[in-house]
């Protein structure tokens, strides 16, 4: 996926919505901000279950 506009078009198609021309600008802005927001929240390592102690492991 080469750029955000293509990603947005795919997301909207998957959602089944058909925005009109004048909606596309606000949607593109919102999409860009959404990617930033989700990256910011995902960057909080204290909230990620990647620490070995938090991963369930089963031993025979």
């Amino acid at each position, binding site marked *: 996926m080469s750029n955000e506009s293509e990603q*947005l078009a795919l*997301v*909207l198609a*998957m*959602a*089944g*919505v*058909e*925005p*009109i021309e*004048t*909606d596309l600008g*606000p*949607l593109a*802005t*919102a*999409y860009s*901000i*959404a*990617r930033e*927001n*989700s990256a*910011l*929240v*995902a*960057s*909080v390592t*204290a*909230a*990620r*279950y990647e620490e070995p102690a938090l991963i369930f492991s089963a031993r025979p």
Partner: protein
Amino acid sequence: MTATPLQTTTSTIKGAATALRDGSLTSTALTQQILDRAIALNPALGAYVDITADAALEQAAAADTALAAGDDRGPLQGIPLAIKDIIAMKGAATTANSRVLAPTWGAGTDAPVVARLRDAGAVFVGKATTSEFAIGLPDATKGFPVPHNPWNIEHTPAGSSSGTGIAVSAGLALGGLGTDTGGSVRSPAAVNGHTGLKVTFGRVPKSGVVPLGFSLDSIGPMARSAWDCAALLEVMAGFDPTDPNAAQQPVPAYTELLDGSVDGLRIALPMPYFFDHEQLDPEMHDAVLVAVKQLVGLGASSTEVELAHAAEAKDANHIILVAEAYAYHRNNLVNRWTDYGVHTRPTLARGAFYSAGDVAQAERFRMMFSRQVAALFENYDVIITPSAPTPAERAADLSPSKRLQVVSYTGHWNLTGLPAVAIPVGFSTSGLPLSMQIVGKPFAEATVLKVADALQQITDWHLAMPPVDALAA
């Protein structure tokens, strides 16, 4: 129709309740005055979608008859209230300010919270304007009133409980209901200059309300003072089996706990983000810290603390909010896209922009942040912050994308499910209200209201009324 000014002594629920009982006022006279003001000022202020005048006067007459016969149901009896138009109320349609909501939604029913107010003898002025589905900015092409801030009609009254916020501020009701999912009780209270309480998640049953974010939504009282909000909450709060999220927690007599004392209260002031952000208006910053100093003068103590990940918490609240909202609206967004307002539809569509992993991560963050806040509350009784970074913005400057990018101090407490009250603490040099937010532990509404009331016993910002009467049609 003329708008006669409300007397300061009867501009609060407490004052009006006293007057109704000492014979100096009747509910019929009070309600007629409120209705006259609402009808005269609604074209300019856009507070109400529907003013239910005939029913209100019947309720007022019934309240007068009951009180005269010694049937005293408490301070809300005979008091005119506004009901946000996403909450079901008998005798009026519920529109959610949208062409999309089915016209029969909630018809002929009271939400449990409205039924409780009705049983307490309250008078319902009408259905108050809301942001479309409690999330969109106004779209004047859809035929619903566009709300305006009564302190300056060029400025926003904030949302989504815009109408109740305007009504309380401008004396078009003495109190009312709002809902809060990311700040929608506190923001209108803040910019319209009165008191608004977001309750602990589950404190007040939210059945009979059009949902926005089902794990974040709450119904809260909005009124001029903390005492008034306490009187409303006493009636509103408590378990109801129709709401799976309703908490089985006893309901204190909130008004009886307002003794004006904050001696020994430990206040946490989270400086990073909440007090040092570049977007925070200096007058707002200073007014809040002056109010904190006043509380310290009454016997409280305050300590600067750090609450990590505050910026991320705002975004996590937003991610969960729009994901849950999108789940509710997804079919209608496909089939009725242009029936939604021009600002509402791209806002709701944001829910589709987050992956399942994004939402799961936001929920993980939510748990982590909640534990972090709970640890802070082991050593403090309340957290105090500004309610908003600035006074009310100019309506013409608002946009959905701008709302995403500005700093915000309210969603953190929806994310963590905590009670938080917004109270006025002054005015900007441009004449717009400034506001402080007091956050408490789970189900500690009594504490946050007590702190708010203590400040309101030594200040009178909450009694100020905007000079709107000249706007009467």
